[in-house]
């Protein structure tokens, strides 16, 4: 039976939640895909793409790219720079232990920094900062 791939997502989320500096900068938490309503400073983890290289003996590894970014409402004066540093510190080249898997590498492929203008009220600004992280883990 192949290992549970969702455990990889969970390991990333837990690694970010364990970083107390990051959670102090982004007190509304670390979430997969979307944060709860009314969140103003939070971290989002999204699976962007994934492939499973094969061997004759089955799935050899899982190769995934995650978009991992801090999102902050401008009016809350979020520490976006600090949050991006903490995301990178928590993940880049760090060993993540995932049940059912063997060796793993995680590294940033490129960084993200954008400002989003609210569609309805264009005085509202959301900051996004982080990166796309590649995770390759063998089964």
């Amino acid at each position, binding site marked *: 039976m192949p290992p549970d791939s969702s455990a990889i997502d969970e390991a990333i989320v837990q690694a970010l939640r364990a970083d107390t500096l990051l959670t102090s900068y982004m007190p509304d938490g670390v979430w997969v895909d979307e944060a709860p309503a009314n969140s103003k400073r939070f971290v989002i983890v999204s699976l962007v793409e994934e492939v499973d*290289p*094969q*061997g*004759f*003996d089955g799935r*050899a*590894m899982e*190769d995934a790219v995650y978009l991992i970014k801090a999102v902050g409402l401008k009016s809350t004066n979020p520490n976006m720079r600090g949050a991006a540093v903490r995301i990178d510190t928590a993940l880049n080249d760090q060993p993540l232990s995932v049940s059912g898997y063997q060796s793993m590498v995680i590294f940033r492929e490129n960084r993200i920094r954008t400002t989003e203008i609210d569609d309805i009220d264009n005085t509202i600004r959301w900051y996004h900062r982080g990166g796309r992280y590649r995770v*390759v883990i*063998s089964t």
Partner: protein
Amino acid sequence: MAGRIHGKKGQIKMDPAGAPGTAATAVADINAFTIDMSTDTVDVTALGDTNKQYVQGLPDYKGTLSGWWNSATSPALFEVILGGGKPWLVLIPDTSEPTFLFKGLAYLSGSIDVSATGAVSISGDWVGAGNWVMEP
């Protein structure tokens, strides 16, 4: 279960000692192999022929293999490659039909491909070191 098949259930078995029989075991972390059975031909065209003509020689038996480096399994394969012996190979296109296979003694060579942006992979070539057979 005759029919067209996918290659995901292929398999290479090997006995490093080169003994034909049941001692061969599956080589782990392999994801592809090829078998080249191209046959030599010699041009024997003569004056008056209306097209080129050939006579046929022997078929070759050689090929390639590739896979993923795994520190738990790959060193054993490379010990065979570097050992210079003649391992017994069994190449099975589909383990769902394990009686359809190609087998014989071979010489192996290999290489490792390491890149900062991808998984470490291995590859190699094999050539027949004895008479090969196809079964059944």
